[in-house]
């Protein structure tokens, strides 16, 4: 013990003359740090209500609730997260996993109130003073709890692909499929967007868990064309996929294909349920496309006798005659159809139904479902169209399906921007032609699947957008000239698609060996009797049906391209399924 030990402690007194460290809250403001995890903010316009925040919250502090003024459609559930600050621990896992990045945090941390119930609130909707706070925690760059990149799909190289009609896409391996399935957050946003309302999260889970039989069962619950849809579906589901907001959407279509590819047709029966006890009811289905056969499948599963009448020599409709083999090999389509047929569905080919036989079918069967598709191509409607070097897109594809060389020559022009146009263009390319697609609007406006457009471009197909067709004329050396007018795009005042307007003087001629017109298809519904006779009303060439496909005649149902606006396979499948259940309800007098 020294004298220093007595004196030294008095050194603390010097602090009495220093400025205090303390802050006089609330007089002195003390904002949280820039990345402070304070009170939540949610950008309602970005939020899609996927509920992944709720899933990850280990405190169960988040509820998904409907909010006034949020309609919810096109990939938005209409729900928004409500956070209970009595449970929240501000760990921000909800912010980290938010699929759209709508959920963030402000740097505010003081909130006092007498009423404990106010601490349960809907960020972004229950107005708070920190709604517009500029700083606070948001998911840092380069940090992610989800895998944003899709597992690449093995495919033939462009050069190899162009050599033949061998399927381009090879399909995932088990390892790849599981890895891709792992990316799904099971929010279920996609289910509403899928026209068939497939249990997408369910079958993706089955892939992840390696349970292929369960996957098959879930696929067939809503879609008896998994091998086909797994290849050519327009996959609207992927457009709304929550993962797609900040990364690549989950490859839902490829995962569906993966499941179907794992099971041989002979083994389908082991995974799938058998038809129910026979009811003795008979149903006729007109058209063996995806809509008709889907209805047939579910009707058969419910124990009804089904006869399918098909005008062509084989089933599948557009899947067979409109989609080239390199996208959908016939054996895969046959696999889907064969399974349905094998359950006891009778398919009669080469039978043309007219108004007379339609009326007879109505009499002979307990119910009728027609889904005949759009088989008649629309014309270009311009001068010179009857030139022998002008072909219809569908006709070309049809010929190729029949195994014939369409003999298109060295240079081919394709008019149109839909899937038929792309398929025709790529088919022509496979016959060695130089192909140019001319489309009236911009590339972004093309109704074809984006993959089709991209793959067409990769295969060396030139796309000339904003080309308004004017006329077709003969050109030298037996060629044909397509005269078009360059367009500028003008916004539609009514909010429709931007309108192409011709630019004066910008008139060009495209000369080629063959011109393929693929601008759209329709039908006259030639077999449909007058409403007074059949009870089936028509409005602008579409049979009038309710949401479940029922026409004005309670025993007659319709679906597919002739009815819906999307005009794709999966919509027809959705229609067929709904109609089947609704027919069953009608026949069995089941209550809704």
């Amino acid at each position: 013990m020294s004298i220093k030990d007595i004196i030294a402690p008095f050194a603390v007194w010097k602090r009495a003359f220093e400025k205090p460290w303390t802050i006089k809250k609330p007089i002195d403001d003390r904002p949280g740090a820039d990345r402070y995890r304070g009170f939540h903010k949610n950008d309602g316009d970005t939020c899609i209500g996927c509920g992944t925040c709720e899933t990850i919250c280990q405190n169960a502090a988040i509820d998904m609730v409907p909010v006034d003024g949020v309609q919810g459609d096109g990939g938005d559930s209409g729900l928004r997260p409500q956070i209970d600050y009595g449970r929240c621990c501000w760990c921000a896992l909800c912010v980290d996993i938010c699929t759209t990045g709508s959920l963030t945090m402000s740097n505010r941390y003081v909130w006092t109130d007498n009423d404990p119930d106010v601490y349960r609130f809907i960020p972004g909707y229950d107005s708070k003073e920190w709604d517009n706070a500029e700083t606070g925690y948001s998911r840092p760059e380069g940090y992610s709890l989800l895998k944003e990149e899709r597992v690449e799909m093995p495919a033939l190289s462009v050069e190899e692909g162009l050599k033949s009609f061998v399927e381009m896409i090879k399909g995932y391996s088990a390892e790849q499929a599981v890895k891709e399935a792992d990316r799904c957050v099971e929010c279920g946003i996609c289910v509403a967007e899928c026209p068939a309302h497939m249990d997408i999260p369910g079958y993706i889970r089955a892939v992840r868990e390696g349970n292929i039989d369960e996957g098959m069962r879930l696929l067939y619950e809503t879609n008896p064309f998994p091998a086909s849809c797994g290849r050519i579906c327009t996959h609207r589901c992927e457009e709304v996929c929550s993962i797609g907001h900040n990364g690549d959407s989950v490859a839902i279509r490829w995962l569906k294909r993966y499941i179907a590819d794992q099971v041989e047709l002979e083994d389908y029966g082991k995974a799938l349920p058998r038809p129910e006890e026979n009811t003795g009811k008979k149903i006729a289905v007109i058209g063996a496309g995806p809509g008709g056969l889907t209805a047939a499948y579910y009707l058969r599963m419910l124990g009804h006798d089904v006869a399918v009448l098909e005008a062509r020599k084989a089933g599948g409709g557009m899947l067979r005659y409109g989609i080239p083999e390199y996208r959908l090999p016939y054996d895969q389509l046959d696999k889907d159809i064969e399974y349905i047929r094998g359950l006891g569905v009778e398919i009669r080919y080469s039978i043309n139904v007219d108004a007379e036989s339609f009326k007879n079918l109505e009499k002979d069967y307990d119910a009728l479902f027609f889904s005949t598709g759009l088989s008649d191509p629309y014309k270009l409607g311009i001068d010179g169209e009857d030139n022998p070097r002008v072909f219809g897109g569908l006709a070309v594809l049809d010929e190729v399906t029949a195994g014939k060389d369409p003999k298109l020559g060295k240079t081919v022009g394709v008019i149109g921007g839909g899937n038929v146009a792309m398929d025709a263009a790529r088919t022509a390319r496979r016959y060695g032609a130089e192909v140019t697609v001319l489309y009236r609007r911009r590339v972004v406006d093309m109704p074809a699947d984006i993959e089709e457009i991209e793959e067409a471009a990769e295969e060396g197909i030139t796309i000339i957008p904003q080309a308004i067709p004017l006329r077709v004329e003969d050109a030298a050396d037996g060629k044909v000239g397509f005269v078009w007018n360059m367009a500028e795009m003008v916004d539609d005042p009514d909010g429709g698609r931007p309108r192409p307007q011709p630019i004066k003087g910008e008139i060009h001629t495209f000369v080629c060996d063959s011109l393929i017109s693929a601008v759209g298809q329709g039908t006259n519904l030639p077999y449909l009797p007058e409403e007074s006779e059949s009870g089936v009303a028509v409005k602008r060439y579409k049979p009038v049906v309710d949401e479940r496909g029922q026409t004005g005649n309670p025993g007659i149902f319709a679906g597919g391209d002739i009815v819906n606006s999307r005009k794709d396979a999966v919509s027809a499948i959705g229609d067929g399924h709904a109609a089947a259940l609704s027919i069953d309800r009608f026949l069995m007098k089941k209550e809704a």
Partner: protein
Amino acid sequence: MTQMPDREKFPVHTGGVENFDLESGRYMKVWQGPQHPGVTGNMALELVTSGDEIVDLKTHVGYLHRGFEKLMERRKWIQNFPLVCRICVPEPDFNEYLYAAATEELAGIEIPERAVWIRTLNLEMARLTSFLMWLGGQAGAFGMGTIGQWTVTMRDFMLDLFEELTGGRIYHMYIVPGGVRGDVPQGWFSHVLTTLKNVEKVLDDIELVLFNNAVFKKRAVGLGVITPDMVDYYGITGPNARASGVARDIRKDRSYLIYDKLDFDIITGISIGVDSDIFGRTRLRAAEMRQSISLIRQMIDKMPEGPVHVSPPNVLHWKIPAGETYLSAECTRGEYGYYIVSDGSDKPRRVYVRGPSYTHAVALFEHMAPGTNIADTAGLMVSLHTYPPEIER
């Protein structure tokens, strides 16, 4: 409105075993706590005294039992990340690091180098921050509350740094499986260096007034001696062991994280010439604070560039292969460890958290207290640096 549990459901507690004849008039039973036996959390000491001398001590925990180990078995791997920091309030980062690192080890994930450096930096800052809090507590336990105010102030400045880096002051939730949550913000390193200077200045002042202090010396010198032969039997780790001259420091012994790239030596009672009493342990911890400051400066100097996170598989379905591991790290109190068992599912099978206070506050303290003066209990307990929340988890 929160509803209270139905107390009728719980039986009345019917007591432990009494070894002392309280009727004799020679003994008195005193409860110290559960509120504030020191400054670090709720724990009760059941003392039997004779006069002002302690004849028996029983440590009672249970005031902070939150069942974290149980909760973790019922949550997905990622969902435990916000839980673990709460196991030890003053030093959350060790929990975050050990949970993340053990998870990564079982899952076979390699994290980027910069993330490893930032983690190490984070842990050393946590050590410094925690020592600051402890130092105030040690001084306070002997009546020198002013020092407590200084250290709490400095700790707050350290917390400002954590807030800037991690978005949180107490529960940082920053070291996440896969790396760290975000890169260091612009200008943060210079803020750290400024704060370190301030801390050093205060440390100078504290050393002046505490280590040259007749009162402190009178009370702390010779009190609570830990001899080297006690170390293994009582499971003593950290500064408590080092002050007795046992040179063990996991940072050196196992060189986890990037400690093998940093320049430092194990500080022991012998190396700095102090005895293994409260006074000596205090000096040793003050020296370790300066060591942490030096380590932080070294790391800021050499910090490599690069990414700070690799994303694990989708965390919502993340399954970790079956296996088990034990990882430990040198926290301010000694060996902090996580024993994690995975059964291959998306949730841990078992997470056991080893806090150094477990042995220090119960077996060791119960052994050391008898014979001391009741007025010294708090000081003795703080000198063992016990944090009750990590005992009962």
